[in-house]
């Protein structure tokens, strides 16, 4: 699609208002139906997707912002956000890393993501999203050989419209909640993964998301479809440059695990959490949900250390008999960060099983809440859930909360829930310090031990990163 063609298409629909915006490749702040039409046209989307977006937008207009989460923040002005921006120098679409704007690559280097090396790093393909548009995709050939589709969702809409149309919005409906509806209306880009029947994805799939341009909310949409008997492990990690204004991030992730399929979704999230006074930082309001069909398995692992506010509940709908859902989470908050995170396990099928391991660490003036739901429906015969939520407190100004909802309507289902809250034990600290570790190092070691059950679920390179992240995030919280 040529630039001229896009421009003319847009000009036709918007005789006024957007011309200057097109030149700067960033829309002026504001949201209305025209913005959605612009995004859709810009991405050259088919009519059905535009209609889908508009329907979501109209639903969203009638919804109100959720207030039940244990987080506090000033009202967000959604009209002050720009809903589209694209890095300018890549409009022609780079075919390989060499064609990527060297300035972008320099930014990656600063963030410490060795993109060049990652091609060499065994088994990791990267689909990097820089301000809403995919700029580089690697290992495409190798994946294509296995029949795996791994591409930006905007591309998937053009190349595999049937697949996208069949699954988009089936797990997180357009009007599921306020932020999911907003995302459905304005989603910029994201990843699409399809693993064909019986295929074991030959490598870990990984996407790095970046937020770069000021005042640009990001609305990624990720859709992963694992066909019958297939297997995939997906890694998501994020960093963002220092910034003083709050940035809204409202992503939607949908996982579809068809009969016998397995999806493992791992996240390391270390977006800018705001400074020590609680100024700035990302607002992270995410909807993540997976649908597990018969004998399928969905496993969420997350390490959340960033964001000023986290509002995130990766969930599993265990629809098929014998399906399995897992949630392993470490959420660390420091300074003035607030997190309200957890999971929902909805048991619909017989003999469905779920495990929830949640470790919350609060330090400084932060607040960290686990909010979860385990629901056994009348037909979930023999279903099983085990939940363990532990909270660790560091400092006397922080807060830790646990809000587990447990609903059972089946006598043969077994649910166990346990939660504990305590501080880092003085005895353990004393022992470490007596062995010559300074207090900060000792706390970091104890915290790492506290999180071990979750870290061991992470792919190896993520586990290493996660350990380091905790250390960095806890800086200044001890002593």
């Amino acid at each position, binding site marked *: 699609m040529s630039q001229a063609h896009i421009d003319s298409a847009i000009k036709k629909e918007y005789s006024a208002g957007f011309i200057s915006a097109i030149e700067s490749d960033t829309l002026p702040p504001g949201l209305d139906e025209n913005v959605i039409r612009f995004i859709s046209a810009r991405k050259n989307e088919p009519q059905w997707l535009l209609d889908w977006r508009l329907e979501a937008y109209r639903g969203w207009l009638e919804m109100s912002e959720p207030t*039940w989460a244990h987080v506090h923040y000033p009202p967000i002005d959604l009209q002050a956000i720009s809903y589209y921006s694209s890095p300018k120098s890549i409009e022609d679409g780079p075919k390989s890393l060499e064609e990527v704007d060297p300035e972008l690559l320099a930014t990656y280097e600063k963030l410490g993501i060795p993109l060049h090396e990652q091609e060499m790093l065994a088994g990791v393909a990267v689909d990097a999203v820089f301000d809403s548009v995919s700029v580089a995709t690697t290992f495409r050939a190798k994946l294509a050989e296995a029949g795996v589709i791994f591409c930006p969702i905007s591309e998937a809409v053009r190349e595999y419209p049937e697949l996208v149309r069949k699954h988009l919005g089936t797990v997180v409906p357009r009007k599921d909640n306020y932020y999911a509806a907003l995302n459905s209306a304005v989603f910029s880009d994201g990843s699409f993964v399809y693993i064909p029947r019986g295929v074991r994805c030959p490598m870990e799939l990984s996407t790095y998301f970046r937020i770069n341009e000021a005042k640009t909310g990001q609305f990624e949409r990720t859709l992963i479809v694992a066909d019958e008997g297939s297997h995939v492990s997906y890694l998501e990690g994020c960093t963002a440059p220092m910034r003083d204004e709050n940035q809204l991030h409202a992503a939607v992730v949908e996982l579809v695990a068809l009969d016998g399929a397995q999806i493992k979704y791992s996240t390391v999230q270390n977006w800018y959490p705001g400074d020590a006074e609680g100024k700035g930082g990302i607002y992270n309001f995410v909807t993540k949900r997976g649908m597990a069909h018969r004998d399928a398995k969905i496993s969420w692992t997350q390490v959340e250390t960033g964001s000023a506010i986290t509002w995130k509940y990766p969930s599993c709908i265990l629809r098929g008999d014998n399906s399995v859902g897992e949630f392993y989470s470490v959420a660390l908050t420091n300074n003035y960060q607030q997190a309200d995170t957890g999971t929902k396990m909805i048991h619909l099928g017989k003999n469905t099983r779920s495990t929830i391991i949640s470790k919350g660490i609060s330090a400084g003036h932060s607040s960290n809440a686990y909010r979860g739901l385990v629901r*056994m429906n*009348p037909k979930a015969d023999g279903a099983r859930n085990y939940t363990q939520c532990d*909270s660790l*407190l*560091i*400092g*006397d*100004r*922080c*807060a*830790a*909360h*646990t*809000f*587990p*909802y*447990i*609903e*059972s*309507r*089946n*006598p*043969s*289902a*077994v*649910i*166990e*829930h*346990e*939660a*504990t*809250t*305590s*501080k880092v034990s003085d005895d353990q600290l004393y022992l470490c310090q007596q062995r010559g570790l300074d207090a900060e190092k000792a706390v970091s070691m104890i915290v790492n031990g506290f999180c071990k059950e979750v870290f061991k679920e992470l792919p190896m390179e993520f586990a290493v990163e996660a350990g380091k992240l905790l250390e960095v995030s806890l800086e200044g919280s001890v002593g």
Partner: protein
Amino acid sequence: MFEFMQQSLDSAAQRAPAWLQDWLRDGRDRWEASTMPTRKTENWKYTSVQALREHFAPAAAGARLLRESDIDLPQLVGSRQVFINGHHSARLSDSELPDGVSLVRFGEASTAQAAHIRQYLGSAAGEAGTLFTALNDASLAEGVFVEIAAGHRVAQPLHLVWLTTNQGEAFSVNQRLLVLCGSDSSCAVVEQFAGVRDANKAFTNGVSELLLARGATLEHYRLHQEEGSDLHVGGVYARLAEQSTFNSFHLGLGSELKRIDVVVEHCGQGAHSEVNGVYLPRGSEHIDYHTCIEHRVPDCTSSETFRGIIADEARAVFNGRIHIHRDAQKTRAELSNKNLLTSTRAEVNTKPELEIYADDVQCAHGATVAQLNENALHYLRTRGVSRTEAQSMLSFGFINEVIDTVRNAALRDYLRAMLARRFARDPALTRPTA
């Protein structure tokens, strides 16, 4: 909106003593300013108050029990006060009170007593209360004030019984109890609610305020034995001063609608509370216990255990909150809630909550939902016990562990016998699947 109580409120305002009139007006203002909870109201997510949407006449005075044998009361060595449809029954009540205990009914309070009561009334239920506490305030024509003199160790329990019987139409009862335990005193208070089988629909709104002064010890029992169409929405609100000890036991048999809020506030250092309970709904009954343990100051401990067996199409709700305020360091708090479902149509919704703002604390909670353990059943059967009997034994055992915490031996025996009869009579409570 609240027409269903209008007549009762007017009647209460007529009957209430002069010194309570402003109290009733204030309560009525708050009640009328509130909105009825719906499924969207977080605290009422699983409990519908639809059953209250009908006309309840004020409870008439002079109701009598047709047969006293209808009501099975524990024979406790102590003083007993009986209220029928909210009105005191001199005939069924003891005239003597144990040494160190004074009891004043609001309607009979002298000016000095009234001033004394007003000093304490609402100090526990005021802030923590729900809209139904406002309703209770608005209907406060009769209440009971009990004071245990400082330093008195009262061995005999005070037994307060609220009975509901026929009135010919649906009616409402307002029950209010205010207990003031003087410093270093100790005593036991048994609150018992029961109805006559096949009586009309009665809606009891009960509020008990328990105030423990420094070093006081209170053994408290709240037995809800109303069944069938007897509705109860109410709560227990306790305030604990330093070094005081509060032991509270709750029994909840189900009825069409039962919602009990238990709020325990640790307001003085070194206070300790223990709250235990058992709930046993069956048929199409509904029971909801909302407990909230507030730790406002350092160095307090609390422990809570609730167990329930849910049979037939019954529904149980349990919400156990532990709230540790900023600077309430060195707190130890724990909560356990276990549930047995014995039917495919039974339902339980449990939510143990922790809300913690201090770091040097040890808190834990646990919740389980399951049916009887097959291995345990199998073990008993290999010992020659029939399946039905094994189920009965295991279910009773499950509840009995909590009954064991009842300190008063006579009451413990009464509860055991009553529950044993119930288990024998009611196989639905022990069947793993219907």
